[in-house]
């Protein structure tokens, strides 16, 4: 008898030929675009399909092709290129020992950059740790982000958080947690509150396909269904959760987007490396939510081209050249080619923007480092450690703070210990 125990089959391991035959790539323009008030089950075919706008000749085709002017497209390209330049520099900074940890979004920049443009400034964002593009798109300064990475005297988190765990109350981006999927039900709760208060803002959240295994993912979908919460819920399927392939999150033979209709909310599956398609489905889902038709689960099919984090080495578990074989290409190249095809961009402008962004990243880095690093320059006051545990310092923390300050004074007087 053959075994009834199934172990998800990984298409390719190190030394093997990359194999993405499991990714069914539909032709651009083929997927129908239903009205925003379509009943939930009307989205079920789209949750298994793949919404694509950019065709092989870099034209925007089909019913999902959004009407975006060239200026907006260039803004999107700018955000993606800035994200990549920032990621490259911070990866190097970690390798040089200047920051302790970093996570790049290489290969999946369109997911954040396009969504940020499709949503309104008042909409609340609940990112995962690979959505730096949302912060850049909403105009947080590089220096502010870098200062958080450095845990320096300018750090928005006052030295309390691991690098990349940014937030911005002002720009309506929630505090990133290192724990997975926790933001998903929170986004739904934020959306419920907006609906309760009669406001038109919506919430959007992102998590990786691996994190859909956590119970919080299911809590989010259930609450979104029950209260028709005005939320856009995004699964970024970048194929890999550290070393485990998307099949270990339940991705074999079934899309992640299909869980939307399965749980009673709309579902859409999109080419996550197609800026225009990501924009279009996000705008559709946002309009649906704002009009009171409930939440949508969007699966962005993309590829984590870099390591999970600077602590990870993907050469141990997947072919080194897998990204070259990825059928949906590189999101930056694809939007660039589209703009070039439109006659709104060229190689010289691209080169010059790339150089300009590298320079602005380097300039910001120099400024950020001037506010200190973990080991050099100005340091945050260690007594900040005790603040914000509660709104007011309780007596036992006051006593501990005093004990630490005495210890630090003593350390200053002595070279050892």
């Amino acid at each position, binding site marked *: 008898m053959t075994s009834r125990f199934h172990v998800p089959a990984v298409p390719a391991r190190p030394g093997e030929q990359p194999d993405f035959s499991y990714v069914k790539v539909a032709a651009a323009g083929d997927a129908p675009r239903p009205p925003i008030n379509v009943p939930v089950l009307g989205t079920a075919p789209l949750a298994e399909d793949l919404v694509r706008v950019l065709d092989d000749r870099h034209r925007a085709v089909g019913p999902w092709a959004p009407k975006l002017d060239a200026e907006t497209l260039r803004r999107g390209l700018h955000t993606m290129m800035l994200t990549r330049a920032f990621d490259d520099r911070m990866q190097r900074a970690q390798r040089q020992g200047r920051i302790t940890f970093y996570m790049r979004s290489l290969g999946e920049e369109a997911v954040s950059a396009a969504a940020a443009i499709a949503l309104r400034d008042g909409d609340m964002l609940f990112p995962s740790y690979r959505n730096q593009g949302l912060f850049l798109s909403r105009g947080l300064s590089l220096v502010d982000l870098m200062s958080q990475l450095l*845990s320096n005297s300018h750090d928005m988190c006052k030295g309390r958080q691991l690098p990349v765990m940014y937030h911005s109350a002002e720009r309506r981006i929630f505090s990133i947690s290192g*724990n997975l999927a926790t933001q998903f039900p929170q986004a739904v709760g934020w959306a419920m509150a907006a609906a309760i208060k009669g406001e038109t803002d919506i919430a959007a959240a992102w998590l990786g396909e691996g994190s859909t*295994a956590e119970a919080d993912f299911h809590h989010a979908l259930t609450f979104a269904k029950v209260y028709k919460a005005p939320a856009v819920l995004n699964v970024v399927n970048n194929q890999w959760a*550290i*070393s485990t392939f998307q099949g*270990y*999150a339940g991705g074999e033979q079934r899309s992640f987007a299909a869980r939307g209709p399965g749980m009673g909310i709309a579902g859409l599956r999109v080419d996550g490396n197609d800026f225009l398609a990501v924009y279009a489905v996000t705008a559709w889902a946002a309009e649906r939510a704002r009009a009171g038709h409930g939440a949508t689960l969007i699966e962005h099919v993309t590829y984590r081209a870099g390591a999970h984090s600077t602590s990870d080495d993907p050469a141990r578990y997947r072919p080194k050249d897998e990204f070259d074989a990825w059928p949906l290409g590189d999101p930056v190249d694809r939007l660039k080619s589209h703009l070039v095809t439109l006659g709104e961009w060229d190689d010289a402008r691209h080169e010059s923007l790339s150089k300009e962004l590298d320079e602005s990243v380097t300039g910001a880095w120099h400024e950020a480092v001037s506010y200190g690093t973990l080991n050099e320059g100005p340091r*945050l006051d260690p007594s900040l450690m005790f603040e914000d545990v509660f709104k007011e310092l309780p007596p036992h923390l006051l006593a*501990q703070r005093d004990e630490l300050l005495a210890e630090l004074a003593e350390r200053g007087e002595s070279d050892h210990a």
Partner: protein
Amino acid sequence: MPNMNMVQALNSAMDIMLTRDPSVVVLGEDVGYFGGVFRVTESLQKKHGAYRVLDTPIAEGGIVGAAVGMCANGLRPIAEIQFADYIYPAYDQIVSEVARLRYRSAGAFSAPLTIRTPCGGGIRGGQTHSQSPEAVFAHVSGIKTVMPSNPYDAKGMLIAAIEDDDPVIFFEPKRVYNGPFDGEPDKPAQSWAEHPKAEVPEGYYTVPIGQAAVTREGSALTIVTYGTMVHVSLAAAEALGLDAEVIDIRSMVPLDIDTIAASVSKTGRCLIAHEATRFAGFGAELSASIQEHCFWNLEAPIMRVAGWDTPYPHAFEWEYFPGKRRVMNALRRLMGEAA
């Protein structure tokens, strides 16, 4: 006898038990093909197969819940939670199910499950990769709670945990995976190579759960500690030239109060040291138990050195970590000197 670091010792324990007992399985995030983010399960899947060493979805509640079901069907799972900081989605399964199954079914069902999880700070992991939540589990009746501090104990205790018919939560202080740590981050990292407790038999042996170890004998005072703080405490006592007795409790539940009480009754002075936050930490239980047993022999109030009662802050790792100086200051006060 081969020299092993703690990662190798733990790996060896699982390898031996997978070989000896066909009911043993290993499951967790990234533990299979990859061999775990700390390499503790390296090569186990290759050797024992994908039916015995399972990569799982990212779902701690699912891992522990499924392990309970496996127990009910005759398996003896070793579940890895990648970081102790990520154990909370499994809290309901651990507290309401794993710890109570035997009791509520009057022995009809039980969960001979081992939950391994790396804990503790000192690796610049910030608040989501540095926590020491042992007291949260020690407080729950029905689950044994342990934390070894060296390779020899790690292997022997893990085998004992796997063989134990009760559930065991097995905390691994990750700062000492690759070498002892005396609490001074600026010194070069030490390896286990020269350490006597890194001499680990290749084969099967056990270190019983529920027995404390006297790591250093002395008569002036007793330091009761566990995990990474065993090494910090030894270094602090030696720096002060104190004739300290250092007890590595190794097991919080069950607690070997006899060994601890005998020592404190002999020395009359006691310092408790752990990395976890102080308030309602395991030190509180230790302090209460020790004074119940040793009150008439105490020459000074029992003292505690612990993590501050805040989340673990990334930038202030070494202001937070209860390092050598903090232990030394406490020892001086305990001996009646002005700090």
